[in-house]
């Protein structure tokens, strides 16, 4: 289903458990081939949202479509189109890696199951361990096997809940590279993670949720929306009077000198920087290099959550 229609559409989706409102009127769309991050604190409703989209839980209100099928009404069709890597790998310990995958192959009705098993086990470096019980596997190997399980039936949409949680850096990197590779195949990936660096690296867009939708956009745009674009001018010596050269520009705000650097919020650095540089050079500044201060997605997250809490309390 590779067209311009969104592969996931959510309209005012809510879900309560008794008196607790876990997901509150969330709406967004996800495009085919997109890597979409679902971020938020514990208990923010990320897993509940994923479970609703994976046709595991029914929404209390609102509607959602996955691969063109409505959740709650066409669940069986949705299940054929999606793969899920839950937070816990949930593998059968007494079974071998191959038996685990063969079982799930039967559940999905995968044709040429042996070929698929070989393909993914080889790709994830587990082929030589295929006859060993999963109980003997390390956490990283289990996670890789769980990923293979989620991909066995070649789903259009893949939900990954904390895919690198608890993995050592090497295994985590391998999994991240694998996810990036899947993106290259045009698969849609919904990534729930607390690892914001990972989300920043992999996701085209991210949604911050805290029961409700707090913000949604690409990490780059979110950074700009919240912090603007800060340019760092590295000088041989940063004098205080240089601020008076930079501040008069209409497109510049928040100028500060920190050690041998001048930091300034610039509206459109690509367009405006040459003017600022020229002015600084004319004033005698010796510029070593110019760069953009890159805020971490974690800063965006903390800022958004602070604002969300503020608006909730206010």
């Amino acid at each position, binding site marked *: 289903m590779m067209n311009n229609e969104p592969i996931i559409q959510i309209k005012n989706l809510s879900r309560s458990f008794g008196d607790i409102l876990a997901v509150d009127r969330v709406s967004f769309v996800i495009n085919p081939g997109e890597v979409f991050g679902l971020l938020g604190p514990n208990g923010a409703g990320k897993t509940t949202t994923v479970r609703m989209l994976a046709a595991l*839980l029914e929404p209390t209100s609102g509607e959602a479509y996955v691969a063109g099928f409505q959740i709650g009404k066409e669940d*069986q069709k949705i*299940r054929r189109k999606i793969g*899920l890597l839950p937070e816990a790998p949930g593998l*059968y310990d007494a*079974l071998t890696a191959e038996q685990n995958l063969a*079982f799930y192959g*039967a*559940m999905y*009705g995968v044709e040429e199951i042996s070929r698929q098993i070989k393909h993914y086990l080889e790709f994830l470096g587990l082929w030589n361990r295929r006859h060993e019980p999963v109980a003997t596997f390390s956490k990283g190997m289990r996670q890789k096997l769980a990923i293979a399980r989620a991909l066995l039936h070649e789903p259009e949409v893949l939900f990954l809940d904390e895919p690198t949680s608890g993995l050592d850096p090497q295994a985590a990197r391998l999994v991240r590279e694998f996810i990036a590779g899947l993106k290259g195949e045009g698969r849609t990936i919904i990534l729930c993670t607390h690892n914001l660096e990972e989300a920043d690296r992999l996701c085209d867009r991210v949604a911050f949720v805290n029961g409700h939708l707090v913000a949604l956009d690409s990490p780059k745009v979110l950074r700009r929306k919240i912090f603007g674009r800060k340019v760092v001018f590295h000088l041989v010596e940063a004098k205080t009077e240089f601020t008076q050269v930079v501040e008069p520009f209409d497109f510049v705000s928040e100028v500060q000198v920190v050690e041998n650097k001048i930091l300034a919020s610039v509206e459109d650095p690509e367009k405006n920087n040459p003017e600022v540089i020229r002015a600084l050079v004319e004033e005698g500044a010796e510029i070593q290099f110019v760069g953009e201060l890159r805020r971490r997605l974690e800063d965006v997250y903390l800022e958004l959550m602070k604002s969300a809490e503020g608006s909730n309390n206010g």
Partner: protein
Amino acid sequence: MDRIRAIIVKEWREVFKNKFVFFTVAFLPLMITALPLGMIYFATGSESFAGVTAADLPPQFSAMCGELSGGDCMMYYIVTQFLLLFMMIPVIIPMTIASYSIVGEKTTRTLEPLLVTPVTTLEILVGKGLAGIIPAVSATWIGYLLYAAGAHIMVDNPAVVGKLFDPLWMTAIFVVGPLLSVFGVSIAVMISSRVNDPRVAEQISGIFVLPVVGLFIGQTTGFILVNQQFILWMAGILLVLDSVLFYFAIQIFQRETILSRWK
């Protein structure tokens, strides 16, 4: 059908690696078969049956003996005593297997990846159910055949052994046995949804074996007579009970229920 078969094979691969489950499935039927055979062995060696008359037996049971002599009727009485013991196999084995299977899936968190596949609730339940019912019913039937063969060797009168193949036994073994297995599985499913330790699930499920034990004691002490009518009633009640319990088991095994209400 492929999914059900895959679930059955997966269940067996898993649960039979558990020593306790394996012991229950392998040794319970052996014990239940060996015990009555031992009793028959000692009874046939005893001369005290020679003077037994119909008056020494419960009157309703004497009526079941037909042309058999007093001694043979007593032997038939002893042989029939153990019928209800065989009824315990199809309840206990599926309860054990289903308890370990379902609670095992809960504790190892394997249910969510399973539920996200296109497998239906009915397929999961039938697969898990059959994984318990097939070994239980097979063990019951094999045990019964061994018992019949043993009795054939030890009991002189072929008419007494022939009674083991009368409609009473056939209905009990081939109809009531499987119905009891479905009962055992349904009970185990319901209990397993509420607990997180297979041993606890098994112990609570064990309460539901007590009626069978009660019937066995009642029959042994002469309070209850297990005859054809009794077995037919039992089959009818179990059929209704199984339908109701299986309906509840399906409700309990809905994805929504498992993920939002199971503990």
